[in-house]
């Protein structure tokens, strides 16, 4: 998949490939150290942040924590 920033596509692909390998071979096997892809993530993030700004996307709104907090939507009462 493409990145929102055209300039970030290559960085994203490199990072995604690293992440998918780490997720399968490390994380799911109980090894939680995530330093393996950290350098790639860092440069990719710098690129994406700029692209988000260019697209006038509210970064604070994107980064809001909702899942796992009491801001999650509630199921309607079953009656």
């Amino acid at each position: 998949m493409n990145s929102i920033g055209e300039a970030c596509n290559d960085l994203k692909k490199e990072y995604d490939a690293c992440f998918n390998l780490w997720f399968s071979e490390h994380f799911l096997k109980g090894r939680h150290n995530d330093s393996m892809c950290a350098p790639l993530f860092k440069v990719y993030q710098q690129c994406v942040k700029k692209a988000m700004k260019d697209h006038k996307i509210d970064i604070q709104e994107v980064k809001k924590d909702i899942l796992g907090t009491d801001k999650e939507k509630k199921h309607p009462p079953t009656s």
Partner: protein
Amino acid sequence: MPKFFSDTIIFNYNWDQVAQGFWKRYPNPNSKHVLTEDTVHREVKSGKLFTKRLLSKTNSIPKWAERFVTTKQVNIVEESIVDPKRKLLVTYTRNLGYAKVMSITEKVVYIESEEHPGKTVAIRSAWIDSQVRGFSRAICAFGYERFKKNCMKMVGGFNHVLSTLYPHHNILPSTHSTITAAAKLKDAAKNASELAKSKAAPIYASLHPNQS
């Protein structure tokens, strides 16, 4: 009134496969509306992986709604938590912008199936809301129907990705595909009987020329 939607689907893949496939589910033949996908936050906390992704999608809207929405693109935030120990993947997705016109929030819990070992259950809940005075009911009804329709496409797309990733996986018909197959058979049977009726009428008429 906000509309609530829920359903449960079984994937014929084990939880580890579904969790790995989750990150690779775009692109797929049913995801042409998904334009971009970016990871914007990721960290491991107490053995769990927390991720936020930003997706942009094309926004198909009916003609009457064009007065409320002027853009053809919508941005979506997808939060997720992967707990490999409990074999639990939870996703929470919401649209950014136009949330007053129509907000669609979706939560999906992927867990190992207790009934069917080696399979994964996806429990989906969705909330469709609108705050446009005088139109919220119509917008919610439209959003609900569209969401319901898209659900089947999303599942189909995800299954396509899983079958590509795990081609040698022993695929048994899932509950969902069985239902679809049954519905298709029923349709086929109905069509056949209608065809038979339409063919039978002229035959009957030709045999009983005086009655027509």
